[in-house]
């Protein structure tokens, strides 16, 4: 597609006129128990192709999945899947006949694939969790700037599409290629600003689980989740899952663009954990995800009957591999028992779990859930900290009231 027509497809997302009382807001949303407060958020109900979402930011849209929705099953409905854009100039119109995916750079032959040409590759499917690098950032202590997510900056879907490797092979990767850089239709609001582009090493780009998704849970992607196509990088954080993917550039040197070299960096320490103010830390691009687990059928402050048996359930993820074990504790972490794991949808998917707990005596109690992945890596008791608020995966603690 030509530059002018492509430009015409883009508009400044949303209006710059802020309304004192916006008509699209539901009355109440969650109040996240963030350290230091400021955790109240409205629910937005007027974003296109989306249901009620926790409004983190109107423009560029930053929409969080209400946590109760995670109790509906192992796959997150498309209309409830979280939304995150970096620049406010995002695609609001897609003409599939004009859409092209370019493959260029260190290739034998440049490609400009139409969507129907793309659909001609072997079709594949994979279940995978898509999680923002900064999911749960609002719980960091001390607090750090950035999107103040609760725990709903994540979702799980059955992604179908074509293997990235098959597309790269069609172009013919030259031996000097070391990285593949991906970009989509979103554009910097200010023309000199850094385009949002992310890279994978060529070895990673050629892994068979990395796909270009043309559908999500058997349906087209919502526009705000990257319609018509997005990159899916199972096991890695969402920053690499480029939406409205339209350009793949094979590079002959590591990518030094802002979004790889300066942004989305983590301390090269176990669990990306450092002390506030710690100096002399080597920083590396964020990469694989780590295990997490959540209780989904009870909220904070839920009332349980003393000395009863209660059924709890939730979701777990291994990170970049499967879930080996989920354990629960009803006594603040002194004793643990194994939860029963639900159907295995593949190593990159959420895994549902169920457990019976013995509710303690009346008073305040804390329920804990801990996932160990198939590499033997368990969620830690103590939260990690880094200045960007990335990779939180501490054991979750749910306060309940026993009556």
């Amino acid at each position, binding site marked *: 597609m030509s530059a002018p027509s492509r430009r015409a497809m883009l508009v400044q997302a949303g209006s*710059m006129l802020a309304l004192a009382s916006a008509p699209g807001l539901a009355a109440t949303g969650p109040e996240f128990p963030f350290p230091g407060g400021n955790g109240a958020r409205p629910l937005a109900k007027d974003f296109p192709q989306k249901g009620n979402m926790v409004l983190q930011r109107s423009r560029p849209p930053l929409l969080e999945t209400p946590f109760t929705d995670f109790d509906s099953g192992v796959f997150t409905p498309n209309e409830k899947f979280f939304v995150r854009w970096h620049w406010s100039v995002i695609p609001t119109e897609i003409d599939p006949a004009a859409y092209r995916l370019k493959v260029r750079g260190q290739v034998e032959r440049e490609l400009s694939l139409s969507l129907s040409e793309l659909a001609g590759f072997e079709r594949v499917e994979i279940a995978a969790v898509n999680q923002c690098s900064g999911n749960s950032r609002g719980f960091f202590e001390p607090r750090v700037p950035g999107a103040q997510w609760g725990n709903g900056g994540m979702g799980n879907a059955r992604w179908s599409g074509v293997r990235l490797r098959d597309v790269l092979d069609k172009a013919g990767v030259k031996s000097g290629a070391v990285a593949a850089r991906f970009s989509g239709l979103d554009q910097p609001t200010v023309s000199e600003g850094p385009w949002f582009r992310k890279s994978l090493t060529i070895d990673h780009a050629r892994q068979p689980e990395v796909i270009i998704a043309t559908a999500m849970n058997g349906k087209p992607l919502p526009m705000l989740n990257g319609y018509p196509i997005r990159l899916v990088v199972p096991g890695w954080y969402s920053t690499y899952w480029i939406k409205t993917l339209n350009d793949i550039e094979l590079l002959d040197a590591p990518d030094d663009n802002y979004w790889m070299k300066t942004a989305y960096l983590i301390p090269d320490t176990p669990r990306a954990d450092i002390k506030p103010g710690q100096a002399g830390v080597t920083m590396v691009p964020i990469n694989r995800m780590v295990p997490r687990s959540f209780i989904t059928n009870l909220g904070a402050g839920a009332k349980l009957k003393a000395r009863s048996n209660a059924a709890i359930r939730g979701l777990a993820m291994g990170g970049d591999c499967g879930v080996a074990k989920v354990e629960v504790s009803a006594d603040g972490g002194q004793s643990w028992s194994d939860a029963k794991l639900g159907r295995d949808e593949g190593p990159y998917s959420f895994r549902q779990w169920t457990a019976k707990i013995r509710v303690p005596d009346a008073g305040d109690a804390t329920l804990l859930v801990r996932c160990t992945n198939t590499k033997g890596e368990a969620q830690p008791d103590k939260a990690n900290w880094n200045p960007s608020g990335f990779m939180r995966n501490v054991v979750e603690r749910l306060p309940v009231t026993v009556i």
Partner: protein
Amino acid sequence: MMAAIAGCLVSAAAVAAPAPVFKSQAIELPADAAAFPDGPNVKVVTQNCLACHSADMVLDQPLLPRATWAAEVTKMRNVYKAPVSDADAALIVDYLAATHSPP
């Protein structure tokens, strides 16, 4: 430095799903849900900051010390190339420190 690429050697499974059908789509995004509350220089803040993002991006942040706000404004200018003058940047930091910093 980098962790292993993929934890599990699992390929996306080939499926006999029908080819996807792509239709033309157009969406309209809602207006910003929030405005900057009153405070010193709020007009300057509104004029500069709303060009790139809605006010809730700022209002949802934790209370941050002045130095952190100053760094954020510098990042908006130097990294994201927000065309904010030196004079306006100082006024914006004053607003943020006055309205959204710890006591």
